[in-house]
């Protein structure tokens, strides 16, 4: 096993083990169905857990311990939703909210489905009002992908609205910033069905990302933005599944070095001192909130980067159109 392959395996194993050990942090809690419940602290983390684990199970062999762990976490997430029943109840409370469908779609992509919810979602999704829900273009893309996964409609070759996103408009790469970064990573995740269909990313975006990911990644990691850095590593891995390029070894080394004692990855370097100083807080909610997403993203990126490429070598040539200029990171 190469040093890079070892790094990828170390990150994936450690991150998913930490997530597993802290699965209670993803539990929905009492206010999951409350009208004023905090979705970002309940349904959102659970949906993110489900999404990452769905991809991990699809890209790993059943005999791989990572696969079994991800499968176990998916079952846990499904149980938290009472095997999908809570989505139906959530929809009755907020029929035109899109997040129930978005979270459900992550579970559905792993084969965990609730037909009655899908039928109910389709009724709502047929309205003009649903289709006219005002959302930023990247989120809209996510909702369309969720609808496709739930059988509401088919997304087709070119996702509508792609050109309205920051990435789809091919902006000057030096205008990249934190918000643009999170938008672009999600455009790639939605286009590629969270890494499972890398070939669905339009070639023009693959070429653009091949050119500009290196400086974005370099500057995010240098600034200790581990969460966005992890997402960009995942994007690089999606792109590499088409181009056949090697993962950026030095970027991965930096992420390995940024991990906490149990394999968890911090959101960023801010507040880390405070978090470490708090006695007995290492298992606390603050620590969880500062680590869960970046740790999930690290596992996601590492599994994607370590998986076999989708493409035959003939297509890989497209990734080397500059004669292998420079180191990727």
């Amino acid at each position, binding site marked *: 096993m190469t040093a890079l392959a070892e790094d990828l395996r170390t990150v994936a194993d450690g991150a998913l083990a930490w997530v597993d050990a802290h699965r209670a942090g993803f539990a929905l809690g009492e206010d999951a169905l409350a009208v004023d419940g905090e979705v970002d602290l309940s349904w959102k983390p659970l949906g993110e857990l489900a999404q990452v684990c769905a991809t991990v199970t699809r890209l790993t062999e059943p005999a791989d311990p990572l696969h079994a762990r991800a499968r176990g976490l998916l079952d846990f997430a499904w149980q938290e939703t009472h095997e999908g029943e809570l989505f139906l109840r959530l929809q009755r409370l907020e029929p035109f909210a899109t997040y129930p469908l978005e979270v459900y779609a992550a579970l559905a992509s792993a084969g965990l489905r609730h037909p009655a919810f899908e039928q109910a979602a389709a009724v709502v999704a047929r309205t003009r009002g649903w289709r006219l829900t005002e959302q930023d273009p990247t989120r809209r893309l996510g909702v369309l992908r969720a609808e496709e996964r739930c059988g509401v409609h088919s997304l087709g070759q070119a996702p509508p609205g792609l050109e309205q996103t920051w990435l789809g408009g091919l902006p*000057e*790469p*030096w205008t*990249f910033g934190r918000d643009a970064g999170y938008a672009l990573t999600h455009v790639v995740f939605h286009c590629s069905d969270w890494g499972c269909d890398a070939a669905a990313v339009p070639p023009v975006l693959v070429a653009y990302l091949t*050119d*500009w990911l290196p*400086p*974005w990644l*370099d500057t995010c990691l240098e600034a200790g933005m581990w969460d966005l850095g992890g997402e960009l590593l995942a994007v690089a891995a999606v792109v590499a599944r088409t181009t056949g390029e090697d993962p950026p070894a030095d970027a991965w080394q930096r992420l390995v070095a940024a991990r906490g004692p149990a394999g968890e990855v911090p959101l960023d370097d801010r507040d880390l001192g405070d978090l470490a100083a708090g006695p007995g807080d290492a298992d606390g909610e603050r620590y969880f909130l500062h680590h869960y997403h970046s740790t999930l993203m690290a596992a996601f990126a590492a599994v994607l980067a370590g998986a076999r490429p989708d493409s035959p070598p003939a297509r890989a040539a497209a990734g080397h159109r500059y004669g292998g200029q420079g*180191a990727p990171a």
Partner: protein
Amino acid sequence: MEQSGTSTRLQAAVQDLASGVVSALRGGDHAHVVPPAGTDGEAGDLALAAVRVLGADALLPGLLSHTPPDPAELAVFRKAVEAYPPRPDAAPTVRWSHWAMARTLRRADPSSAEPPAEPDTAWLDGATWQVLTHQLAVLAPLALPGEDCAVHRLAQHRPVDVARGFVRAVRRRDWRQAAGAGRWLTLLPGVPDTVGLESGLDFVELMGGQDPLVALQVQAARRMRMGARG
């Protein structure tokens, strides 16, 4: 204390000199930017050292406008070339910068001595795009239309890497490096269009242009782009 005072005064002299070059590049006329020779003592030493620090770009306005240099200006430039030969252990960028001055002198005054042999580019073999861009930005005076030297040829093979370095420099708010890289990008074939170089140069000037060393590179890049179009 004295040393840091000298260093501050040298930096100020370099900034003044760069401001003069920027004005001349903006005006398009050949204003004299190199201070007259004959100033003795510390002021004269400082002026000479400033010319050495700025390097070949001290004569850039005349070079780009194909205007014959002023003899007095040329005399100071020549003195700076002769007064600061690179030490045997000098960094490659110092050796190249001196070579660029000797070559500029020869171009401006064909009666001058032949420039020394080109230094090598071995130190850039296998350089990461980050290191490459940093070193090229330091050697921005070599980024000239029609230039044919080993550094130029090396840069021509790595346009995407230099463009990545430009993006990195802007993200890190390293305006001097961004401006130097931007100047190289105006000359390199194969730079991806998506980099948006014209608005990128405007942005670098907006954010860092109050530093004459940034403004100089941006102006040089603009003049060379205009030249390429005309």
